[in-house]
């Protein structure tokens, strides 16, 4: 009977899940996402986000493929990053100081912002609504809200320009800074992940990346899947509590994890409860679609 981090593990699937190299796979997805993103940027026009996206999708040769590859590799990166984090927390065998942990786990909110700005850059009905909502959420933050909005979004005055700059450079640089000590230590080779490298292009060929044109009479817009719970929460609570305080709570809990065992367990319990609540909200929001 094998034990990991004090927990007994007997089931083979659980052992396989824990042994899987989630982090390396996430890194491969990130590399594919960055490379396909650079190619997309060569054709993307920030002045006309939706027209530009539609042109890439419908007119430019293989545009649909590159867009789908960027979309699915980014989704894969986020999902695998979550799995990687969950396994690390389960095993409890990381030995990072608090400051190193804070710097590394800051990649989670940065990744979510990167994904979010990617949605906005589509310029379709979903992207447009997501941009407007993000702007209102930023405005709701006391004192620093306006500056934060001008730094990150400012969709109503600048269109997609600032979002594009952040998606392409600002957030990438911030994410790189947060993950650099980790990436310097753990590398991966493409030849070790051939299945994943085949799966991503196959998926991109078979399933087009989503795009929702705006049209009169559009009754429901669903946000990105990872923001469905937040979209639901915004129905019931004031913007600051639903859009800032609730997401900040789990991020703070995550950053506070390196602590003595009892307090660490409390933080973990809080994270689990938060995730269950968020999953329920996301499910309610999904049922509205």
């Amino acid at each position, binding site marked *: 009977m094998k034990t990991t981090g004090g927990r007994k593990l007997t089931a083979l699937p659980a052992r396989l899940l824990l042994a899987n190299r989630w982090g390396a796979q996430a890194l491969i997805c990130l590399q594919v996402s960055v490379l396909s993103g650079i190619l997309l940027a060569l054709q993307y026009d920030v002045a006309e986000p939706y027209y530009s996206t539609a042109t890439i999708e419908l007119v430019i040769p293989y545009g649909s493929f590159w867009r789908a590859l960027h979309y699915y590799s980014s989704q894969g990166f986020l999902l695998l990053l979550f799995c990687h984090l969950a396994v690390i927390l389960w095993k409890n065998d990381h030995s990072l100081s608090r400051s190193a942990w804070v710097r590394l786990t800051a990649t989670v909110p940065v990744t979510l912002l990167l994904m979010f700005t990617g949605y906005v850059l589509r310029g379709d*009905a979903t992207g447009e609504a997501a941009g*407007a*909502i993000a702007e209102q*959420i930023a405005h709701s933050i006391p004192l620093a809200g306006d*500056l934060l909005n001008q730094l990150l979004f400012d969709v109503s*005055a600048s269109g997609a320009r600032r979002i594009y700059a952040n998606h392409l450079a600002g957030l990438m640089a911030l994410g790189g800074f947060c993950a650099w000590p980790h990436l310097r230590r753990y590398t991966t080779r493409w030849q070790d992940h051939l299945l994943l490298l085949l799966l991503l292009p196959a998926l991109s060929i078979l399933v087009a990346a989503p795009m929702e044109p705006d049209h*009169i009479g*559009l009754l*429901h*817009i669903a946000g990105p899947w990872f923001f469905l719970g937040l979209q639901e929460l915004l129905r019931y609570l004031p913007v600051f509590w639903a859009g800032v305080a609730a997401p900040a709570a789990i991020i703070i809990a995550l950053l506070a994890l390196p602590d003595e065992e009892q307090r660490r367990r409390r933080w973990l319990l809080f994270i689990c409860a938060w995730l269950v609540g968020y999953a329920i909200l996301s499910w309610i929001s999904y049922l509205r679609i």
Partner: protein
Amino acid sequence: MPPANRSSAADPQRRQILVSWLRWGGALLAGCLAWPLTRFIGFQTRPKPRYVTVTAPLPLSGYHAERDFFLFLTAHGPRAVSRKCTHLGCRVNYLEDRKIIECPCHQSRFTPAGRRISGPAKRNLPTYPVETRTDDRGRIRDYVVTL
């Protein structure tokens, strides 16, 4: 002699605290001095007023949809209602069969006059000034909405 020992042991610690304070103080001062530079980020040039012309007559449904507003013909004349939801800024839609304006994000509802009916939005939809232009015979030629 013990007091001298304590003093020499405390010296490096005191120096460390002083250096740390100096660093933080320096960073704070640099932040304060650099703060005006953040005005670069936030500065916004006021956009020119936009005039959108809608040609008369309006459709039989009595309304015309533009990207930023709905133009309704009411008993009191033309009325341009913003399409930006007052909850979170999503673009609202007009449901012709139910005669209501509804937001696709959180389903806030408004009357065609822009008055809030239900949902998380707390304020009415803003309206824009509409100017009516007529031809030589006094017939309405078009409506000019100022955004």
